[in-house]
Structures are given as structure tokens and as C-alpha cells.
């Protein structure tokens, strides 16, 4: 499996490494998602779509918690991906974030994985 770091988003509070693996872009977030960071992340994501990428795995392993801004970002990325014919799934969602997703019913919208290889296989299929 080839892992290629294709780009990096760096804001004052959120960073995102983008790693390509078998046609899927793994977006590894770390830091805190606030409004400014979410806007920057969304803009970077739209850039990836313009570059022809369409399969995304949002890796939240380094995100301890999110609030409504983070939830809005996740839904926004999913909508943007699907509107372009792509797909986005979540990886390494901790129990705190999963509980929040379930509270606001958004877990219904996402494919959520704890196993990266399985997620990559499903997204690449």
C-alpha cells in the first residue's frame, strides 16, 4: 500500500495531513475545529475535489472532542463530496464524538470505521 502525503492544511488551531492510499485520500485532522478552521478545511477540501479526488476518509484519531462547529464541518464535507459524485467516511471516531453524533442523529449519514484497511477497501470498491 502506497502512502503519499499530498498536502497539508495548517491553521493556528487545526492541521490536516492528506495522505493518498489506493485512490483514497485520508484526511488526518489534529487540533481544534472552530469556525475559522472549519472554513479553511472546507476550502482545502474543495481544492482536492477540483484536483479530481473523490474518495475520502476523515481520520479523527487526533481529535479528542468536537462541538457543533465540528459536526457542521463533517456534514459539510460529506455534502460537498457527494454533490461531486464522491464519498466520505469517518475513521477512528472516539466514544465521546460518537455519542455526540448519535445525539444529533448524524451517525445515520456516515459510514464510520475503526479499521483503516477495511475503510479503504470499502471506499475504493
Amino acid at each position, binding site marked *: 500500500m502506497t502512502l503519499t502525503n499530498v498536502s497539508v492544511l495548517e491553521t*493556528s488551531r487545526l492541521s490536516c495531513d492528506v495522505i493518498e492510499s489506493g485512490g483514497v485520500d485520508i484526511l488526518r485532522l489534529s487540533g481544534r475545529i*472552530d469556525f475559522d478552521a472549519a472554513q479553511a478545511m472546507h476550502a482545502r477540501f474543495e481544492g482536492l475535489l477540483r484536483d479530481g479526488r473523490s474518495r475520502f476518509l476523515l481520520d479523527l484519531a487526533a481529535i479528542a472532542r468536537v*462541538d457543533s462547529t465540528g459536526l*457542521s464541518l463533517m456534514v*459539510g464535507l460529506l455534502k460537498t463530496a457527494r454533490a461531486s459524485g464522491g464519498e466520505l467516511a469517518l475513521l477512528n471516531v472516539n466514544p465521546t464524538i460518537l455519542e*455526540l453524533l448519535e445525539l*444529533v442523529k448524524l451517525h445515520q*449519514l456516515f459510514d464510520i470505521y475503526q479499521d483503516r484497511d477495511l475503510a479503504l477497501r470499502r471506499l475504493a470498491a
Partner: protein
Amino acid sequence: MRLDSRLEEVARMDRRLTSLFDGTPAMMPVFDAVRLSVAEAVNNCIEHAYSNEPGHPIEVSFEMATASVTVTIQDSGRAVPDGVFDCVQLPEFDPDDLSTFPEGGFGLFIIKTQMDDVSYQSCDGVNTLTLVKSLNTET
């Protein structure tokens, strides 16, 4: 604790809350709910009351009693319209219809569901949101 209406202040406030809530593991879900709700409330002040304009004050105060914690958040910006806190609902959506996926409207719902009591009043240009959370972990 006085905050400026900038998003980075939310993280500072959260660190302060974390230092105050140095409780037992059993209490952590309670404190996590308070931290999340206060962050949502301060975010609302910044984004809605002050329209993301820095330089305005937000006053956050905490009162820990035996049975509950009370957090008061005050701003002097645009007030929340009457009745909004009384009829908070989750945005409706159809998982099969992309156009209905909600990209907002979660904040007040989170506050209402995580806290045991939420009250809001606007008086003489000062808006006050009061959040109460029971410290009884058995409920």
C-alpha cells in the same frame, strides 16, 4: 472570567473549565457535558450576538454547589429572539436526500439536551444565559 469575542478565547475558557473540574472519573461525563455546552454558548455569543466581531466582552461565571454546577454566560450583543430556547428542535433531515442534510442548528439542541436547566433573559442590553447541571451521576 472575562473573554473577548474571539474564537481562540473558547479554548482558553475550556482550559480554565478543565482545571476547575478536577473531579473523580465518575464525574467526568457530567463535566464533559458542561464543557461542551459552555463552549456552544460562548460560540453562539461570538458568532450570533457579536457577528464574529472581536473586541466585545463575554462574561462567564461558575458556581459549584454540592448538588449542581451553574454557569452564567453574559454578553451585550444581539439578543436571541424570544422563545427560541423554549422550542429548540433538532434539524430534520432525510438520510437519503443530500439536500436536507443539516449543516447547522445543533448548538442550542446540544445545550438543551446536555443541561438540566437552561434559562435566558435579556435586560438593559445584557443577555444572560444560565446553565445548570446536576452533579448526581445516577440520573
